[in-house]
């Protein structure tokens, strides 16, 4: 493995192609990124009752996240401490305990070992059950979104989100908050996990071209972007990258723009009614962000489109493969009918059978697979669009760029990637707070 400053150069604009292919780099990512970062697990609204649980993965580690009888949420590794077998085989549900199908060890919904068969006769009552707790995951929520980390030294989830939290409050902190509609769709892509993350975090550039066919038939306000026919960098939107590696691009006044006719009308009406509430609760900036369409990612592998309202996890499955989990993001206080309309549209656009999703899949895969070639892999890749034009805004956290077609959030993501891969302790990782001091 080359040194990190060779793998990512020019402030994130140049990446060595090996970071999308090499097994040793992937294993290093599992250690330095996926075993340390806060990773999205589920939403509180999906597991409201005592004993409700969801199974998911953190990197390639299988975990279960469960509601406890005191209302708190805990998570643990889905692997028996006896011989390593899985103890949960379902997507989720409601349970009082998990029993390992191999020897019958029973674990509580908090991951504690509560019963072993033949404890007296075969273990002579000498087994230390407390020490055989399932491996614990640290859990915290932000506005109902539940994240987990394996790193006891990690900062709070709120600090981890840094400046991104302020922006995400625009929709996460509306009265009643948000919820996710599940169960999630699951599909596969033979690509590296970073390809779709960088696509969602800031690749407005591909929209007019890759999605030209869908834009043409959707006929909504975004149809003008088809073939990059119309684009005004000054007035169309912004891109933001925060030092914590998260980022997004926003198209002003376009939250509902990708929804076809009747849904767009109903959703726009909702947005118009809610906007004053957002302004009053937060400020005019957040009202503006609430009304825009976002492409966004929370480092390392959680992505969403606010407005279209698709919410995704790109679960790594080796250096060249991922599983895609897709939920629909809605506001809890929306009328049920509107939630259903948005959900149906999300399936139509960014679901597994979605008319925009299917544009992206082939691109993601080939961006990874081309690096299989040894000589190809010796080269580098370039995302220098708009570099040097990022600026500090007195009122907005992070680094801001004009226009939604830019590559600043991708560069921010790779800068963060490099910081983690260098194995820096949390105290030496960049933060939004440090950046704010430069203003």
């Amino acid at each position, binding site marked *: 493995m080359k040194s990190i400053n060779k793998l990512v150069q020019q402030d994130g604009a140049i990446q060595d192609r090996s970071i999308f292919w090499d097994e040793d780099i992937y294993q290093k990512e599992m250690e330095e990124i996926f075993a340390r970062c806060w990773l999205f697990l589920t939403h509180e609204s999906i597991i409201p009752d005592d004993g409700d649980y969801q199974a998911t993965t953190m990197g390639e580690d299988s975990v279960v996240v469960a509601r406890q009888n005191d209302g708190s949420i805990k998570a643990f590794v889905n692997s028996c401490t006896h011989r390593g077998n899985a103890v949960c085989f379902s997507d989720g*549900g409601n349970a009082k305990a998990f029993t390992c199908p191999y020897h019958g060890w029973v674990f509580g919904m908090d991951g504690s070992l509560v019963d072993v068969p033949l404890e007296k006769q075969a273990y002579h009552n000498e087994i230390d059950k407390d020490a055989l707790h399932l491996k614990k995951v640290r859990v915290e929520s932000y506005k109902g979104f539940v994240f987990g980390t394996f790193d006891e030294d990690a900062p709070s989830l709120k600090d981890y989100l840094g400046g991104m939290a302020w922006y995400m409050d625009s929709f996460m902190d509306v009265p009643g908050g948000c919820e996710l*509609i599940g*169960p999630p*769709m699951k*599909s596969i892509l033979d690509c590296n996990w970073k390809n779709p993350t960088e696509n969602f975090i800031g690749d407005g550039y591909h929209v007019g071209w890759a999605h030209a*066919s869908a834009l043409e*038939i959707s006929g909504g306000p975004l149809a003008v972007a088809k073939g990059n026919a119309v684009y005004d960098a000054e007035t169309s939107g912004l891109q933001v990258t925060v030092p914590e590696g998260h980022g997004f691009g926003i198209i002003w006044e376009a939250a509902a723009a990708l929804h076809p006719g009747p849904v767009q009308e109903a959703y726009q009406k909702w947005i118009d009614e809610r906007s004053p509430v957002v302004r009053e609760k937060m400020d005019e900036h957040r009202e503006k962000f609430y009304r825009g369409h976002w492409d966004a990612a929370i480092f390392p592998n959680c992505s969403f489109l606010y407005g279209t309202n698709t919410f995704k996890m790109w679960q790594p499955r080796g250096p060249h493969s991922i599983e895609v989990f897709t939920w629909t993001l809605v506001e809890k206080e929306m009328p049920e009918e509107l939630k259903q309309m948005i959900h149906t549209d999300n399936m139509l656009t960014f679901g597994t*059978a979605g008319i925009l999703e299917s544009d992206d899949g082939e691109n*993601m895969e080939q961006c990874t697979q081309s690096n299989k070639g040894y000589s190809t892999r010796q080269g580098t890749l370039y995302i220098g669009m708009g570099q040097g034009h990022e600026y500090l805004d007195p009122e907005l956290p992070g680094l801001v760029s004009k226009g939604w077609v830019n590559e600043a959030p991708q560069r921010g993501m790779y800068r963060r990637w490099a910081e983690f891969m260098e194995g820096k302790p949390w105290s030496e990782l960049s933060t939004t707070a440090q950046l704010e001091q430069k203003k």
Partner: protein
Amino acid sequence: MSTNNQQAGQSVDQSTHFEVERFLVQEARALDEERFDDWLGGMLTKDIIYQLPTQEVRYRKDKKVLGNSQTTYLYNDNFGMLSMRVARLDTGIVWAEDPRVRNRRIISNIDAHWADVDGEIEVRSAFVLFRSRMQRDQATHYGIRMDRLRKEDGQWKLASRVITLDQRVVLDKNIHCFF
């Protein structure tokens, strides 16, 4: 017109079964050959409901509906949405379908009964859909379809379809293909 041998739940007669089978085979062929306008215009009713629910892996005894969860769908389309999908494929600028994806549908285990609406038929059929892309990219999908057929202008047409895809994790980069 309801007669004794068209009672709801009864298997259709041999000649009707032949018509149903011909319809399903011809529909599969139209889709294999990308004759989407023939499919949309000639084989579907305007009030069609076309659904593919998300598969979920649950323990047999655990029936609890979680929180706000519900049946989610990969397809939950009406005629207008299916028309959008076809219109997109017809734009000529769908890069992921150019070069074309070669789709091959095998329809079998056809079981047709008279439905609870006069003259309508419920058909259960098993399918295998083989998808071949580019040089050696392969995906296989299989499951069952519950269809409702209705005769309009002397032609059988598809009035609803509910597709069960057996895989939980869809082992494909997309399923923007009709089942």
